[in-house]
């Protein structure tokens, strides 16, 4: 996949995380699937989207807290996994690792944009105190543009650096595809389940309902 369309997708999905419109198109389930479709394999995009979504369940965007940015990261993960359909093993783990590294870097880049927004707001203080609506519109526009540019740059750089890195590491991989999937989904499902437990453990009847749900789930596929 070309880098520029992927970077554009990263801009749109990265912007959704906080800036606009927060419709959750940036969630890994959606973003990685769409990125996989862009790269020619939506099914593989969905698989890595599920793996990343289980991790992302634990990073809720509470206020001013620092959290990884999943929009751009999911584009990177989705593209890398979808592109590696010919690799027998290793591609999923490496794409997940690449997505996690991108999510961390992209989360840090959000902090930089927020600091830049603060400097702009500080500079516009006189106009704001005078009730200048144009200054408010300008700050909104600059903030949104910076956030979109941030998503694009992070996605572009991550794919530029990580695509050749993944291609170089995949041939060195030892182990079976089944082990790879088992380890990754086992690990991430645990994180997802633990997160849900953290969220619901204070709710009355949650313990019984969770046990009943697990029994239902196990019965279903047995």
């Amino acid at each position, binding site marked *: 996949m070309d880098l520029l369309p992927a970077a554009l997708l990263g801009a749109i999905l990265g912007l959704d995380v906080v800036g606009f419109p927060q*419709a959750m198109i940036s969630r890994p389930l959606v973003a990685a*699937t769409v990125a996989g479709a862009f790269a020619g394999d939506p099914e593989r995009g969905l698989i890595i989207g599920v793996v990343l979504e289980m991790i992302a369940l634990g990073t809720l965007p509470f*206020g001013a807290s620092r959290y990884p940015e999943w929009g751009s990261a999911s584009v990177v993960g989705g593209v890398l996994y979808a592109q590696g359909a010919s690799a027998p093993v290793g591609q999923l783990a490496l794409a997940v*690792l690449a997505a996690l590294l991108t999510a961390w870097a992209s989360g840090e880049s959000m902090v930089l944009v927020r600091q830049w927004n603060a400097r702009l707001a500080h500079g516009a203080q006189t106009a704001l105190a005078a009730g*200048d609506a144009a200054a408010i519109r300008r700050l909104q526009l600059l903030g949104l543009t910076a956030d979109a540019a941030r998503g694009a740059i992070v996605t572009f750089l991550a794919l530029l650096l990580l695509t050749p890195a993944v291609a170089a590491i995949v041939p060195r991989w030892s182990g079976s595809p089944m082990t790879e999937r088992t380890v990754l989904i*086992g690990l991430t499902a645990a994180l997802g389940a633990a997160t849900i437990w953290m969220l619901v453990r204070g709710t009355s009847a949650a313990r019984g309902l969770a046990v009943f749900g*697990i029994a239902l*789930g196990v019965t279903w596929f047995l």
Partner: protein
Amino acid sequence: MVPVSPPALPWSTRVVMMLRLFAVQGAWNYETMIGNGIAFALEPALRYLPDGRDGPAYRAAVARHSGYFNAHPYLASLAVGALARAELDRVDPALIERMRSACCGPLGSTGDRLIWAGWLPLCSLMALFAFGLGLGPLGVVVLFLGTYNLGHVLVRFWAIDAGWREGLRLASVLATPAFRQAPVLIGRIMALLAGVAVPLAVARVVGADRVALVSALGVALCWTIGTALVSRRLDGWRAALAAVAAYVLYSTVL
């Protein structure tokens, strides 16, 4: 108290305010948080103040609302509706300032509990459940986005309307039993759904291999119990990063 019927605010203005609210966090920063976004969303309503856009009332109101404000982005619509009503009712600016300060905390905590810790993970679990049942990429994406945004957009529309209707009596809206009961109900559904959805999603990723499936679920169960017992504040993505990096090293170097 005799109920006061709200003055008319044209629908076109409400729609513009609503659209602007989708970008309420566009200039998010560590000094004024979403203050600029609140002023941005309120501004179309403030044009109805005496003397319009160039009047002193308009400028004073724009200046007042561009300062610090923090709330959940969806429930910020409630504040915007209420503040617009208060401004157009020509309420004392000191009272408006007090309401602005007072509603930040409740709007933030209510929204976090209801949306970020409730509706969002619930919709994710529904989509994972659908994935586990065999739904394809398009179906999973449409199901997740459709369900999530039905709730999201309804909350935003309801909130701006309720805020406008109640004005300074915003606390009465937040005291509605639904805000207390909904997170409990969502929590119970999540507990039940997680039990079904996670094993089914694992089964679909792993495929037909029973040994691998049991291994994956065993790993998941052990780690879940361990995490739930050991950590009170889960920072799962860092744990995932460390574990996946270790696995990659093990599979390529060792």
